[in-house]
């Protein structure tokens, strides 16, 4: 392999080089559209920036043919571009269907792992409804924007030359998209208002002797899907005297709940309230693909009126060193008759 060929391949001037770049791009897109790994632990933005860098390389290699106005193209270029769009449209349906398959398959794998490891650890599947996560959204946008370019890069010959093509310095400006996207992301995570997740699809419900219970699963989104989601998962019960959290021994049951359980003599009070992480778990439902979530604490107190005040605190940090970090609090208040006074 000559040195000249390697240079041309690195600049994606060869078909083989471009095809390798296309394959890597599609693999990263598939990874983003799947649920594996279950979290990028705050490094999701790095994956996106790598993807953007590959996109820039491919757009440069195809001289932006997919995005050039029709009047700037000759007949051959116009025909090549239109054909790429036709094939791209057909492949778009296929790509979305495959993404859906990958999502379902990885969700099944995670469910199987969660069922096999029910040993008190947090279940891998979140009940919090993010609708389409930030990584899934990135995969969809990537396919929509880049498929015609990927088609051109895959099918064109060893050189994609266009008469009257743009100057190299013009293409170099494309690299500015990387710091621009990084800056927009940081601004979004640091300053965008918090949002509440959509209604959970969870149908989990528990029960406790002498009480009525309801499962609460919700979350707050920081950075509009491109930051982190702090989750709340709690089984709240009430008996007319008190409202209380069930399934978490670190939050003691009130006297009224213990009395209603009629525990045999010698059995400690927390014996009737074992840890049930599928019902109540501090930190469950948290997703941290694009920003890390730390210092998560949960507390539950019952006031003199028997009203439960349950809260989750967490710190969301997009970058190390506390840059752009913010504290998030979710509060759930339930009266002793089951009325929800404050929703997360």
């Amino acid at each position, binding site marked *: 392999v000559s040195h000249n060929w390697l240079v041309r391949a690195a600049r994606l001037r060869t078909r083989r080089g471009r095809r390798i770049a296309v394959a890597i791009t599609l693999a990263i897109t598939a990874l983003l559209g799947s649920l594996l790994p279950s979290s990028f632990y705050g490094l999701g933005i790095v994956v996106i920036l790598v993807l953007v860098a590959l996109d820039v390389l491919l757009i440069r290699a195809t001289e932006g043919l997919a995005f050039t106005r029709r009047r700037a193209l000759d007949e051959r270029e116009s025909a090549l571009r239109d054909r790429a769009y036709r094939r791209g*449209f*057909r*492949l*778009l349906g296929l790509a*979305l269907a495959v993404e859906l398959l990958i999502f379902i398959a990885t969700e099944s794998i995670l469910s199987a792992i969660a069922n096999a490891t029910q040993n008190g650890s947090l279940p891998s599947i979140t009940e919090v409804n993010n609708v389409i996560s930030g990584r899934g959204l990135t995969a969809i946008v990537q396919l*929509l924007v880049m498929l015609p370019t990927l088609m051109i890069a895959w099918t064109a010959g060893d050189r994609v030359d266009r008469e009257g093509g743009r100057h190299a310095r013009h293409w170099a400006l494309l690299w500015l998209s990387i710091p621009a996207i990084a800056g927009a992301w940081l601004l979004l995570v640091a300053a965008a208002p918090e949002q509440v997740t*959509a*209604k959970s699809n969870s149908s989990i419900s528990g029960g406790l002797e002498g009480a009525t219970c309801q499962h609460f699963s919700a979350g707050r989104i920081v950075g509009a899907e491109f930051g982190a989601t702090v989750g709340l998962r709690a089984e709240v019960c009430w008996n007319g005297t008190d409202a209380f959290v069930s399934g978490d021994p670190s939050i003691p049951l009130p006297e009224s709940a213990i009395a209603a359980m009629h525990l045999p003599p010698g059995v400690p009070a927390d014996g009737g309230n074992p840890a049930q992480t599928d019902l109540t778990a501090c930190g469950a439902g948290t997703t941290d693909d694009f920003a890390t979530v730390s210092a998560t604490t949960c507390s539950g107190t019952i006031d003199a009126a028997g009203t439960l005040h349950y809260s989750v605190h967490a710190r969301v940090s997009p970058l190390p060193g506390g840059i752009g970090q913010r504290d998030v609090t979710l509060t759930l208040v339930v009266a002793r008759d089951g009325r929800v006074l404050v929703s997360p």
Partner: protein
Amino acid sequence: MTVIANPPIRQRGPRSLFTPVRITTAIFIGLVCLSLIPAGGHLAWLVGYLLLVLVTCIVLRTTRREPGTWLGRRAVRRAVVGLIAADCVALMATPAPSAGSPTAGSGLLAFLLLLVVLNVALGGATQRVASAPDSIVDERQEALRNHAHRIAYLIFAVVVGGAVVVADVASTETRSWLASGFGGGGWIVLLELLFVLPGMVLAFLEPTHPAPEFRTLHPGQRHDRPALLAKALLALTVAIPVALSLAVVLVPVTTSSTIQAPTDSVVPGATSCREFFATAHLGTGIDASVPLHAEACWNGKRAFETYGMNAGDCMTFSSDMTIVTTTQCTQVTRADGTLAFTYRSDVAPGVMPFLHRQVTLQLIIDRNGNVEKFP
């Protein structure tokens, strides 16, 4: 763009069996079949129906006709495209039928049927050039359909991609709309756009064509057998869900009942007890079963319930593509000690929720254990 006036049809190599469209269709059908597995054998007929739909689509695609004078006009074609777009908007706006509001999705089937009819018209108007194999389109048609695909791609990216991105990040309300949108007609619209949007653009772009300009792809097949077969299959595809839905409300309810001695221990204060089983079944394929399982006892002074006549017991119905709503679940002990239990449900076919009928299961037993009415 260079347009060749009367180009020869190019002969190319055989078309691959595994085209992106075929694989995409197979994946979506596979996903639908997978989603039916949890339902067991009850909805097995749906797999057969899905195959019928697939065969109908294939037969429709193979029957190519000249668009005719009327559909050959640009204004008419554009009107068809406009109607399809309006129908898609209506489908998106129509919520899925649910137990809480069974009539909420009443327009879903009507809009879906309209979409099928409009798609057939669109296919006739464009001779399905957008999805035709490369081997049977000429250079002018290929250039035109490639151009149409580019425009369709941009429309799809802006309309679908833009809507999904904005809805997913804008606010909690928009995110909830996105989550619920695919519960109604959202999936239908997505598939419609994925498979038909280029054809819509093609129909919109193509000028009014005189007969020699717009050559038919398969001349001489105007009233051939495949066309008649396609019409018959299309009619059958539409008729099956309509007929099954009508059966839910028109065919008499099948009711079975049994009374037997209770299997558990003696109830304090009772002279005797009986267990009552009843099931009302409606429809086939699109069907519902409303069961009653209760125990009543009596002692000469009054009859009373031991179990099976409470609010929770009136929620044990099963339904396949039907919406069952409990409208009455009451237990009354009359002054003469007679126990009367009424369990009334409203059943509506899921695809035609504006049709519905009431099913009533009633148990009346006097203080001496005489069953006055059951079910």
